[in-house]
């Protein structure tokens, strides 16, 4: 992006293979998920491709700027297919490295969020649209995965901190870019934020909550306010009822 007060001038940009690495990590997560649920070769392949490339595909379809990059650049599909093969054969083995997986998952999630938000900013869409696209790119793969498996999307249910981490990471990224930060350093900061939130969330067992119903609380608050107002009126009535009626009567007479 444009120059300005750079946060890290030494970092020019992330290496070219970063998108493929992100697709690899999220595709692998999808493949092991499918393998653990007892899908066969084609199921693992389909779910690995959907998880790894779903976000980028959704981004390009929403942006409507020509054929999606995952189709024009053959490496994406190949990487996703390779993750399917690895996940199919070594799912049990991979599942042992849970800590590493969370770390890599956080990094790839953060990267996908920034990659989703960037073209929106470049096309002059607003900050809100950029945040939306970033989150869609980040978590779209997970949503597609759950749809393909035939379940309600995991990310939309109360539970693991992925969606919130993606949202916060994207907001940080878009905010930094709008403050004219260096593109790559904004990207790295957003990725670190998402990764940190994923890891800390996993360690501490952070969970998102289901809807908090504020109706009763609001109602109580309102009632309490009404009661307070009523008691205030009562108290004024007690101390000087004649003056109160007198004043209203006075306005009526005028």
């Amino acid at each position, binding site marked *: 992006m444009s120059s300005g007060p750079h946060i890290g001038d030494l970092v020019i940009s992330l290496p070219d293979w970063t998108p493929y690495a992100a697709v690899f990590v999220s595709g692998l997560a999808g493949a092991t998920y*499918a*393998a*653990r649920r*007892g*899908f*066969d*070769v*084609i*199921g*693992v392949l*389909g*779910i690995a*491709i959907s998880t790894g490339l779903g976000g980028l*595909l959704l981004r*390009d*379809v929403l942006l*409507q*700027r*020509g*054929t*999606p990059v*995952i*189709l*024009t650049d*053959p490496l994406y*599909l*190949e990487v996703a*297919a390779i993750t399917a093969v690895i*996940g*199919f*054969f*070594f*799912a*049990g*083995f991979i599942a042992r490295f849970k800590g590493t997986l969370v770390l890599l998952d956080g990094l790839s999630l953060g990267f996908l969020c920034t990659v989703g938000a960037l073209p929106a900013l470049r096309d002059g869409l607003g900050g809100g649209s950029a945040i939306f696209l970033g989150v869609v790119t980040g978590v779209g793969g997970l949503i597609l995965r759950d*749809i*393909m*498996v*035939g379940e309600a999307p995991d990310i939309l249910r109360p539970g693991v901190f992925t969606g919130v981490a993606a949202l916060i990471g994207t907001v940080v990224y878009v905010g930094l870019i709008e403050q004219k930060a260096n593109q790559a350093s904004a990207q790295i900061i957003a990725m670190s934020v998402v990764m940190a939130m994923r890891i800390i969330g996993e360690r501490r067992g952070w969970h998102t909550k289901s809807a908090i119903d504020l109706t009763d609380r609001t109602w109580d608050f309102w009632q309490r306010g009404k009661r307070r107002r009523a008691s205030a009126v009562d108290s004024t009535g007690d101390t000087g009822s004649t003056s109160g009626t007198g004043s209203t009567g006075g306005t009526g007479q005028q």
Partner: protein
Amino acid sequence: MNLYTVHLTMPHALEIIAITLGALSGALHATRKEMGVLGIFSVAFATGLGGGAIRDVILDDGTPAFLTNGNILAYAVLGAVIAYFFARVAARFEQAYVLLDAMMLGAWVLIATDKAIQLNLGVVASVYVGLIAATGGGLLRDLLCKDPPAVLQPGQWQAIAVLGAAVTFVGAVALDVPIIIAQIATMTVATTLLLSSRAFTFQLPTSYAVSDRIIRIFRPAREL
């Protein structure tokens, strides 16, 4: 390898039959789920037009074909109406549908893969688009009916048949095989794979069995 100079010489009737049959089978599926009129027609449209619509949206090549060409929509309506009013008669030809369905799978692969090739996409991407378009209708149908998508379930050979057909077509085009032969070969591969899987019912291995076996090869001593 000039992939992009292909022009499909497939009879137009094949496409029409594919869409009508897709809508018909979708509507029958919805009838079996005891849906209402709206449900039956929605599932019929999703099944008949879904694959093509997903293909056009993903390829991002202008307005989807079923919207620009009114005939396509009309044939989908035809299939849905037949299934809606004559469900019992239509359901009686279930065996014929299996054969027709297998052939239509090949037709879908041809239509989608050909479009991808004409947009100058690579080999892998063309196969992928063919796979999505041929299985997308069924996928949408399952999602609307709240079934787990059948394409991905273990023991289903539809995706394998589609994959084989798509690889056949793209490979034949890449090798400059005459287009008619490539088309016939594609349809044959799809039909043969699907029908033979129905006849013999093989199961592909699921993943954990393989994974455990491999770990046991590397660590024969320690028990898992």
